[in-house]
């Protein structure tokens, strides 16, 4: 199964959240690939704590692969090559977790027919090798989005299941932007249909993840005044109405990730250790990630809303 991670704007926590989903699935025994198609700003190396390993792959990343300069993109075995002390002790019975980094210093680039064919080659190969392939896409209506829309519409990929996760923050601007990315004229659905996707099927394969959502019930805000609590409550309701009006209401939400400093500031994987022993991360955050990871392949959360 392919999972594409998209967002209209930067700062939605798309990369760090999708990396955490990949990590969670690997913990449950799946073989997981994380493909960094965030061509403008590849950041996965930092999230998986593999900067040293990535340094050796400057000219052998996904950019070079798609441009045909190398035949196979570099791959980094996260369990083996991470500098994160906890990750290195690969949990027993976990699946493989492999990062496909972009080139260091690679920019956004126009993709041609050859790059598309190579993209399909890669996705098919990974599909034969991994249970789950998470593809992190550059923000906005990018070349990366175009390329994977074209790739998944290609006859060669007709039997490969895929799903989209669209990440957005829980603000007016982000809600409107995320809806635009999916529903506007040349958005994911419109662009996908132009490339040969069936509109209904594509729509059924898109879900939203609300990121950095402050939970009014959270102990984080329990010190606030009653007025503040009431205000938060009403804002939250207003946002829900706005989201529903923009066709990204609760029925198409796969999950909600609470506002979590560790994701906002450190951009790292959240381990049980972070929650249980050092307590730098919130239990709710970890649970939310585990639940979204589980729902990725739970068909009852997908399909026509």
């Amino acid at each position, binding site marked *: *199964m392919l999972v594409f991670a998209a967002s209209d704007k930067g700062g939605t926590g798309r990369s760090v959240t999708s990396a955490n989903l990949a990590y969670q*699935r690997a913990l449950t*025994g799946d073989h997981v690939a994380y493909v960094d198609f965030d061509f403008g700003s590849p950041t996965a190396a930092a999230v998986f704590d593999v900067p040293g390993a990535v340094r050796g792959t400057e000219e052998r990343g996904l950019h070079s692969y798609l441009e045909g300069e190398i*035949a*196979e993109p570099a791959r980094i*075995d996260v369990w083996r090559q991470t500098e994160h002390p906890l990750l290195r002790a690969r949990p027993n019975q976990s699946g493989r977790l492999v990062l496909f980094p972009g080139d260091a210093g690679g920019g956004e680039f126009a993709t041609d027919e050859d790059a598309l064919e190579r993209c399909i080659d890669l996705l098919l190969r990974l599909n*034969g*090798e991994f*249970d789950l392939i998470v593809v992190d896409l550059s923000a906005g209506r990018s070349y990366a989005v175009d390329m994977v829309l074209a790739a998944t519409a290609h006859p060669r990929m007709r*039997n490969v299941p895929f799903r989209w996760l669209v990440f957005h923050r829980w603000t007016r601007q982000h809600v409107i932007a995320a809806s635009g990315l999916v529903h506007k004229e040349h958005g994911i659905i419109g662009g996908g249909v132009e490339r040969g996707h069936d509109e209904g099927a594509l729509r059924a394969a898109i879900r939203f993840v609300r990121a950095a959502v402050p939970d009014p019930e959270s102990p984080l805000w329990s010190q606030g005044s009653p007025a503040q609590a009431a205000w938060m409550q009403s804002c939250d309701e207003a946002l829900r109405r706005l989201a529903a009006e923009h066709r990204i209401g609760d029925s198409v939400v796969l999950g909600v990730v609470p506002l979590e400093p560790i994701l906002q500031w450190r951009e790292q994987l959240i381990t049980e250790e972070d929650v249980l022993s050092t307590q730098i991360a919130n239990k709710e955050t970890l649970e939310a990630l585990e639940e979204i990871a589980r729902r990725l392949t739970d068909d009852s959360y997908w399909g026509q809303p």
Partner: protein
Amino acid sequence: MAPHESAPRAVLAGGEIRTCLLPARQALDVRAAAQLLGLRADERVLLSERPNLYARSPDTLTGIDCPLPSANGAHVRAVGTVAARAALTEGRILQTSAYFRLPASGPDQRQPWGHYLVRPGLLEPFGKLPHEAVAQGVLDGGRHGELDVGLIAGGLLTRLLRHPLLDQRPPLRSRPTRLRWVALPAEGDQGPSIERFTLAEDELRTVRLRVPEGTPPADVAGLCDDLALHDWLLTTLVRLLDGIRLGSGPPPARVGPPADDRPAVVAALRPAVDHLLHLWMPRARVAKELAPLWEALEERPGFTRQWQALVQRIRDQLTLHAIPSLYREVEPAP
């Protein structure tokens, strides 16, 4: 004498093989296999039904003009062609194999291209060839810009995997492997021998051989294709069993669980029974002179011994799960 035989005798042969599961729900029948491997409109695909179904493409050539990798840093440029072919065993295992041979010495400058094309699979070094150093260099993998036959095998594999015959629905998850080999001349009148078979990285194996002078490189490549095929089978079964949780605990949350409620173990092992277990057949197509080399591997580490143990384990698991739970004293795990 044929022009390709008028070339000086090879002192080094080498190659690389990619082995993978054919990404198709059903194994290809002989006709479909011939279609997949018909790399040339005017050359037949070799088809054989004994002792197993086997199809092999005609050779294709790739032009090369680059330095050779060498263990001691010697810089030797070589020009010529690398031959590559693809084979499909039982319509299920796809292999691409690229190989070359090198004579002890060659002309000091590049010849017109037609000179090389009538010597298919021959690379001519500029000057004298330090064959021991180059053999080790090939096994170690060269630096960027040095001869990389793996790219040629990989390129052919990519081309075949784009074929519209393939529905891209592999019956089980597996990883392709690479096997790199070199063959140096045997001492005196000694027979062929395997000097070393190494499991290098996750997917890379290297094989170092000694063969009597005059052994056709295509035969050596054929032996190595056979080694690669069986090594892939072993590797794939080991990983398959490795990924299954035996004993207590929840079954792994594999993507796309089976529609019925068969235990996860059965769901995971069933494809191996359907698609892999009948493929073990060492030496099926190895040249008679080279077939004895298998004996060394059967001795240590014992390829067939390990295979039989794995097969037995799979059958035991399936048998256990086939017993109605009513009659089981204890639930089989999981």
